[in-house]
C-alpha cells in the first residue's frame, strides 16, 4: 500500500486523535488490570524512572550508581579487597555459600564479576580445583558479618572448606 495524502486538520482527524489518546492512556494506565501486560511493564521500566528522575540525577558518582544496581555484590568485593594482605591469595566461595546470606544472588563469587567490580586481584575461583590449594585466605560469612580468615586464625579452615564443599555440590 502506498502512503496516501491525508487532510492535516479535520473534525474526523480530531476524532481519531481523541481515539489515539484514549488507546495510549488505556494501554499504559492501570485501567485493564492484570489483563494488560503493557501497563505493569511500562510502570516498571519507564514511569518508575520518570518519577525518580530528579532524585536519581542528583546522584552522579559512578560508585554510587553501581552500588544502587548491585548493592552487596559491589560492597563485598570492595570490603574483601580492602582487607587483603600483600601475600594473600583468596579463595572465592561457591555462589551457594554467598546466597545463604544475601537477598539477591551472590554474583560476586564469580571471578569474572569480582574482577568487573574491583579489578584483577589474587583470587582463585571455587570451581578452579587445580589452583584451589594455592589459596591462603578465605571468606567467612555470617548474618550481617563478613571477615577473611587465614590458616592459624580463629576459624577452622577445614570445616569452612567442608561447608563450601557441601554447598558447592548443590549447584
Amino acid at each position: 500500500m502506498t502512503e496516501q495524502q491525508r487532510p492535516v486538520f479535520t473534525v474526523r482527524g480530531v476524532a481519531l486523535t481523541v481515539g489515539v489518546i484514549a488507546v495510549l492512556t488505556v494501554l499504559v494506565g492501570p485501567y485493564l488490570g492484570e489483563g494488560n501486560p503493557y501497563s505493569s511493564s511500562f510502570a516498571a521500566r519507564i514511569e518508575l524512572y520518570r518519577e525518580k528522575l530528579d532524585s536519581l540525577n542528583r546522584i552522579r558518582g559512578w560508585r554510587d550508581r553501581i552500588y544502587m544496581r548491585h548493592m552487596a555484590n559491589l560492597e563485598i568485593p570492595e570490603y574483601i579487597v580492602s582487607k587483603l594482605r600483600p601475600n594473600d591469595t583468596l579463595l572465592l566461595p561457591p555462589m551457594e555459600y554467598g546466597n545463604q546470606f544475601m537477598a539477591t544472588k551472590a554474583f560476586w563469587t564469580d571471578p569474572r564479576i569480582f574482577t568487573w567490580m574491583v579489578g584483577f586481584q589474587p583470587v582463585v575461583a571455587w570451581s578452579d580445583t587445580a589452583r584451589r590449594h594455592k589459596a591462603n585466605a578465605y571468606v567467612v560469612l555470617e548474618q550481617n558479618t563478613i571477615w577473611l580468615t587465614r590458616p592459624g586464625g580463629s576459624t577452622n579452615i577445614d570445616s569452612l572448606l567442608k561447608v563450601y564443599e557441601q554447598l558447592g555440590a548443590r549447584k
Partner: protein
Amino acid sequence: MKSEVPLLVLTLLMQWLTGLFAVGATGYRAQRSVLLPMSLLLGMFLHSLSMFIAQMAGVPLSLQTMMVSGIAAMLVPLLRWNAVRGSLAGLFMMPRFRPTLYDVVIFGFIGYVAYMVVWASWYWPVTPFDAMAGIDLVARYAARDGMIASQVFTDPSLQGNLSNQPFYAPFAMLMQVMMKLVGYPYTQIWVSIVAICFWWFTWATLRSLAHPLIAGLLTVLFILTPEMLGYSYILQTDFANAAFFAIGCVMLMRSINEKEFAGTIVSAIAFAGACWSRTETPLLVGLIGAAALPQILRVFGPVKGLAGALGVLAMSTLTFALWNIVFFNAYLPVRPSTADQLRSFDLSLFAQVVSTSWTSVISSTELWGWIIWLFIAVIVIDTLLNRRLAQPLLIGFVVVTFLGLFLVGTIFSAAVVEQTLRRGMFKIIPLMVVAIAGSGMVSSASTALYSWEAGRKS
C-alpha cells in the same frame, strides 16, 4: 559541555555517514525514512568491523584508532562515487511528510519513551550478569590495554572460568570499547541509540504497509513489548542482533517485492551485522536464505538470484569466521568451549524444546504483550476470509526463524529455552509486527480509514 558529548556525536555522525555511503554504494534507492535509521545501524556495524580489522592488523585500540578506522569505513564506499551519488540524490529533497494531529500525539509518546530509554542507558551502569561477565569485562580491559586479547584472557584468576560469555558478541563488545574510548566508562548509551533507530526503521516500514494511524499504534505496541522494552537500554547482545536480523529480512523482502537486486546486497550487509552480533545467527540466516531462494530465483533469474543468495550467505559467513575462526585461532590465547556444547540432533529433545518454548516463552503475554496472539488472529482471519496469505514470504521468515531457534535449543546445550530462546524471540517479534501491518485485514482497514478520514465513500 563535557568532552565526551561532542565526541559521541562525532562518532555517531561518522557511523551514520558510513552506513549512508555503504547503502549508496550498493545503488539501492531506499525510502528516506527507512534509509536514515538503517544507515546508522549499518554504520555502527561497519565501523566496529573496521576497528576490529585494524586491531587484527596490530594497531592498538585507542581513540585515534577508533576515529581513523571510522573515517576509513566511511571513505571506502565512496570508491563507488557514482552509485553513491545516484542512490543518495533524493536525500536532501524537501520532506513530503505532513503530520496530522494524531501523528503528533504518537510521536510525542514515542519521544517520551525514547527520552527515558536514552537516559536509563546513560545513567545506569551495566547490569546483566552475562554482560558483566562477558561483553563489558572484555571491553573494559580492551580499552585499557589497547587490545582485545587482554589480561581477561590470560590472568590466572579467570583461566578456566571464562565460559562462553566473553566470546559470543564482538559487535556489542566493540561498541562498548568505543563508548569507553569516547569517555563513558560504565554506560551502554549506544544500546538506546540502536533501539531508537530500530523503532524508527520499523515505524517507516509499517507506514509503507498500513495507514499511518495503524502503523503508529503498531509501532507503539512493538516498542512497549514488555520483554523488549527493558533491553532497549540494558546491555545485551540480543536487541542489536534482532535489529540487524529484522532489517535483513525486511530488506530482502523489499528487494524481492520491488525486484531491486541492490536491496539484496543491503540485506546481506544487515545479515552480516546480525552474524557479527551473535554467534548462532548464521544458522538462522541460512534458513532465511533457503526460505527466500525460490522467490529470489524467480524474480532475479537463476544466475543473479543464486549469486544474490550465495552473497548473503558468504557475507554472513565471513563476519562469523573473522571472529570465531580467524581471531580465536590466530589471536586469542584461549578458546571458548562452544564445540563441547554441541550435541547431536535428537527428535525427542527437539519436541521437548518446541513444547517448552511454547508454554513458557512464546505464548506468554507477560513477555510479548498481545503481538503473538494478534499475529495468529490476523493470519487465521486472513486465511479464512481471503483464502490466501498477504505476506507469505514474511510469514515464511517467521516460521523458519522459529525453526532455527528450536534447532539452536536442541543442538546447543548452553541454549536455555527460558533465557537464550526467550531473547531469540526478539528477532521474530518485529517480523510479526510487519506481517500484521501487511496482512489483508489491515490493508482493508487502512483503505477504509483513508476514505473515512478524507470524507470519501469507500
